[in-house]
């Protein structure tokens, strides 16, 4: 991979961020996901966390475990050179994330912002639901809460900014819109996204070794379900 355009900077004294671009676009994010998997497979033992984001990736390292860097001014500079070497030697391949279909109930009782959003977008509620379920979204990153997927890009005609005042409690499973992004709250949490529905699926499951349903690089499609089906699936998911 071409490393000349990478912007690499310290995120404090125990982490380094590699920024690939300052745009949100699928090809940059695919490179981020590739670097993520590549570095994970290298199992460099001083790395404690690798955090992919929209257009950057951050490597957290254990400073105490690093040897003295004889030819570098700091351990940071040494790590930076190792990371550049790794990324340079990485073969870029086309990757296919998993395709995941997620049921969403767009009933007003679980989509408290549906009316406001449809008025804001000058569309009927049916049109908003149709547009939200019409395409597939890329999971760009997981952040904010355990298992919270940042997905994009939604149809420009149903985009709306976050609420001016976040809600104190957004229920678990809520599906929201923030600008061009759509996301799902895996847990009850305060939050400012425009909530248009709720999925009965668990996005985050404490008792499994892989606690999160989604990962960066996945493709997600939503399909509408009735309130009855929502309640049925929810009761099965939570037993």
């Amino acid at each position, binding site marked *: 991979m071409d490393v000349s355009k990478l912007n690499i900077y310290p995120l*404090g004294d125990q982490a380094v961020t590699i920024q690939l671009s300052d745009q949100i676009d699928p090809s940059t994010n695919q490179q981020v996901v590739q670097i993520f998997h590549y570095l994970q497979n290298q199992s460099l033992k001083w790395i404690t966390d690798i955090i992919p984001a929209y257009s950057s990736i951050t490597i*957290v390292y254990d400073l105490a475990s690093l040897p003295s860097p004889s030819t570098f001014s700091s351990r*940071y500079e040494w790590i930076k050179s190792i990371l550049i070497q790794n990324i340079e030697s990485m073969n870029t391949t086309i990757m296919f994330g998993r395709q995941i279909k997620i049921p969403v109930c767009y009933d007003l009782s679980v989509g408290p912002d549906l009316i406001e959003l449809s008025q804001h977008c000058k569309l009927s509620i049916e049109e908003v639901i149709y547009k939200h379920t019409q395409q597939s979204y890329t999971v760009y990153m997981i952040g904010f809460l355990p298992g919270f997927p940042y997905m994009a890009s939604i149809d420009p005609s149903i985009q709306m900014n976050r609420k001016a005042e976040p809600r104190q409690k957004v229920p678990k499973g809520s599906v929201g819109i923030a600008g061009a992004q759509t996301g799902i709250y895996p847990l009850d949490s305060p939050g400012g996204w425009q909530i248009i529905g709720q999925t009965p699926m668990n996005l985050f499951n404490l008792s499994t070794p892989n606690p999160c349903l989604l990962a960066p690089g996945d493709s997600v499609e939503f399909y509408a379900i009735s309130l009855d089906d929502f309640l049925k699936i929810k009761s099965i998911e939570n037993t």
Partner: protein
Amino acid sequence: MSIQIIKPGLFSTIQDEGRKGFQHLGINPNGAMDIRAMQIANALVLNDVSQAILEFYFPGPVLRFTQPAVIALSGADFSAEINGVKLSINQPLLISANTTIQFGSKKWGQVGYLSVQGGFHLTQWLNSYSTNVKAAAGGFEGGILKPGQTIDLNLKTSNKDTSKEFSIIPWKGSVKDFYHSNALQFIPGYEFKKLTASSQELFSSSVFSLLGQSDRMGYRLKGPSLELSTNNEMISSAVTKGTVQLFPSGQCVVLMADHQTTGGYPRMGHIIAADLPTLAQKTRNDAIYFKPTSIDQAEKLFLEQEQHLHKFTNACSLQLDAYHRH
């Protein structure tokens, strides 16, 4: 065989060095706010320094030991006492069965730690004992401690002298190498240059004070209103403990142990790891100053602290060894 939580205190949790390797899933590291105090408390009772400990805020908890135990307190000094007799922090103590520890007034610091020799009997979640309150996982039953809970201990300590409620082990550790009262040093953040020239100047020359709304997620600061010269919407990326974010209001927050894994606010700087214990012990209305530093200086200071900890740990084993042979 346990500690009973008579009163839980304010936001008492079980923590260790933090949960590593799961931030890509949005699972933040958690862990002790003041990692050094946690390590010191462990070293004093001859635990591995990464052993899980009890973290607490003021007012502290009231804890009853149903069995003898060797314990130590470190970090904040909230005037711990047993039956009206004051206990020193940074000193190991042998507690008799059915003894109750409580705390009086806030003398120094913000966050206290209690270690027990052998540690607490708990199960890990994703390789760590740290409590993740948001996910209701890790620690003790995934949350802050509640009255009436009982936490089992791993080790059965014997105590021949049952006439006293506790005995002080005559060895007090010095923690001066881990804290200071100077400006907190930071590595400038990626968006620092986007501040106006006068705001850049203000960041390193002004007094900030710690606001009461501070918690394990972040320490909120009150200071001069800082302005960006350009106001582009930022794309979310990873943040870390010590990252100083600028809110649209012009005020800053320093992200602490329960920080989100990613964030979209401009990053003014990153408090160096060696200064995080000092920051963690700042309390409401304390004055805070910032001073820029370089990455090599930050690394040097951190590694010096690691050396100090190593020496501290060795001194503890020598002293306690001598005590037991005595």
